[in-house]
């Protein structure tokens, strides 16, 4: 099947690597930033399209790596064109938009894959597999951590709430989704956050408490709060029968101790690095492609994407009211 990417930023490039290794016919890219599109096209030997409509016409699958506020319109456009869709997370910025997108894809008979990449990180998969196998018993306390730094330069749209939904919707969504994937539906959400008003200071930090229908509880910690270059994640899941602990600090398999060179270049947007054979973004794209090609279910459904957004928005609601937010009619 033929595939094209719209958007040539950090995610467009991460996905491109996946498409190259997917077995799909990776034909083209289109991006608002023509220079970025040209660079990506050159790297992968594909065509840079001047406008995304032409690219859309040329493919069977379109991969949307554009800012989140564009997801809805572009998904609707692609569904009208009867193309299967890969769409970066969050699915949308409002529940209404997300529902409309899912409905449009169902109606058009096209597949919609929301790229929740954390589900494809091997440590998160291994933890979920142990939990699903009952090795932890009933889940009790889940702690998930994800702190990076404020996106920089071209990627600064992330810090614009109107475009990205803000740090909770963009970043903490991953762990909200993962928590739900291992512990089920959430009944209560309580959140606290801060956004720096100081120039050059790290941006956002939030703590979200979830109470699950199962009786489990979770603390989701997220932030763009470290100085540029730092990104730390962690898992701590305790159940009645066992415990899983993991911190990104602990699992570097290669650590350079080199003479300092000129200032190390920092990526514009921090994404977790991992010295493993297959980049999780590649795993994700391969999975999505094979599921579309073979008409098999996705590991993460559009509805999962919608529910993760519901949790993120509930957290924002809690921030606004200062109160506990109840989901699913208490």
């Amino acid at each position, binding site marked *: 099947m033929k595939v094209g990417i719209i958007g040539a930023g950090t995610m467009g490039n991460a996905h491109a690597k996946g498409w190259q290794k997917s077995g799909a016919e990776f034909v083209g890219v289109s991006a608002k930033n023509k220079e970025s599109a040209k660079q990506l096209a050159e790297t992968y030997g594909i065509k840079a399209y001047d406008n995304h409509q032409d690219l859309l016409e040329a493919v069977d699958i379109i991969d949307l790596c554009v800012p989140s506020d564009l997801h809805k319109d572009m998904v609707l456009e692609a569904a009208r064109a009867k193309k299967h869709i890969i769409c970066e997370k969050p699915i949308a910025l409002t529940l209404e938009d997300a529902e409309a997108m899912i409905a449009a894809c169902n109606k058009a008979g096209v597949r919609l894959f929301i790229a929740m990449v954390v589900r494809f990180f091997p440590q998160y998969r291994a933890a979920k597999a142990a939990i699903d196998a009952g090795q932890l018993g009933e889940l*009790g306390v889940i702690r998930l951590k994800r702190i990076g730094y404020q996106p920089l330069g071209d990627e600064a749209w992330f810090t614009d709430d109107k475009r990205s939904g803000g740090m909770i919707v963009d970043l903490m969504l991953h762990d909200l989704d993962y928590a739900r994937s291992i512990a089920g539906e959430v009944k209560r959400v309580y959140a606290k956050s801060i956004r720096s008003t100081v120039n050059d*200071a790290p941006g956002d930090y939030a703590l979200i408490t979830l109470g699950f229908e199962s009786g489990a509880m979770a603390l989701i910690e997220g932030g763009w709060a470290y100085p540029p270059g730092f990104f730390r994640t962690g898992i701590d899941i305790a159940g*009645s029968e066992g415990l899983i602990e993991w911190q990104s600090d602990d699992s570097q398999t290669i650590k350079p101790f080199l003479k300092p060179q000129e200032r190390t270049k920092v990526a514009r947007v921090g994404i977790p690095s991992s010295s493993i054979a297959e980049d999780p973004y590649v795993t994700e794209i391969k999975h999505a492609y094979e599921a579309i090609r073979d008409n098999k279910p996705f590991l993460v459904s559009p509805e999962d994407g919608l529910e993760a957004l519901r949790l993120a928005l509930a957290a924002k609601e809690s921030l606004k009211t200062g109160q506990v937010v109840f989901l699913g009619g208490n």
Partner: protein
Amino acid sequence: MRLGIMSFAHVHADGFLQILRKLQDVEFVGFSDTDKEQGKFFAELYGVPWFSSHEELLDQKLEGVVICSENANHLADVKLAAAAGVHILCEKPIATTLEDGLAIKEEIDKAGIKFMTAFPMRFDPSIVALKEMIERGDLGKIYAINGINHSEIPRRHRSWFADKKLAGGGAVMDHTVHLLDLYRWLLDSEASDLYAEVANPFTPDAEIDTAGLVTLSFANGVFASIDCSWSRPEAVYPRWGHLKMEVIGEQGAIAVDAFNQYLNYYSKQNSRQANWLGWGSDSSTAMVQEFINSIKEDRDPSIGWKDGFEALKVALACYDAAKAKQVVKL
């Protein structure tokens, strides 16, 4: 200085005994315990004098005692010590109800004795260093603190920790107070409201809370969380647990893992498959020394009744918030 231990009920009694025997300017007189079996057992184990009544111990011309009874018995023991005019270092939480907490204040004021709450972590070198960094302004304005004081359930060491009547509660009562005290001290501000999820997912056979996630707001605008859960697998985890915190501020973050100084230790003679053998500093010795110094110098100890009472207030409010499923004002 003649010092003794009232009751050997608390798990920390053993540690206090070792410290009192070791300190140069202390004459360790012995311990009292009305439980004959417990008294005899520890007297033989450590080769120290045991008194079968507290009055008998208090008759030994003591200057101070460490109260290591069950939380619910602190007030009764304070009364006896106060009547004998003996200064008190009291285990935390200082009581199980606000009424008892206030009654303790009356007793010590009436008797004019010193009262120190046993919060040893204020003497931990990493916490002291953190306090210095905060005061020096390394972090700029403080935004938030994410703290963890999770452990295994302590009932294998002393069964009353899982007895609601004697302990006043489970994990929340046991562990919230340590971090709360550190937050108050580091921030120089009082908690203004909190929300908590509290449950018992880990030891269903014990009728007590074993899990708690607390989110607090402080009067100065900082928010913080406390994971007080007994969530480390009982008898399986390589050590009792952890005390960690990450402080987020304008200039980045500082992470503290106070018990990170240990050896990985394996022996066929041990019951656990792996052990973490701590080699870090002993903050309890510094705490006892401060108690002794306050008596010698006839001044208030650095951690007083109010610190113990504020921590108790917060621990009790956690249960209220969890029950009401609402934010509770303090």
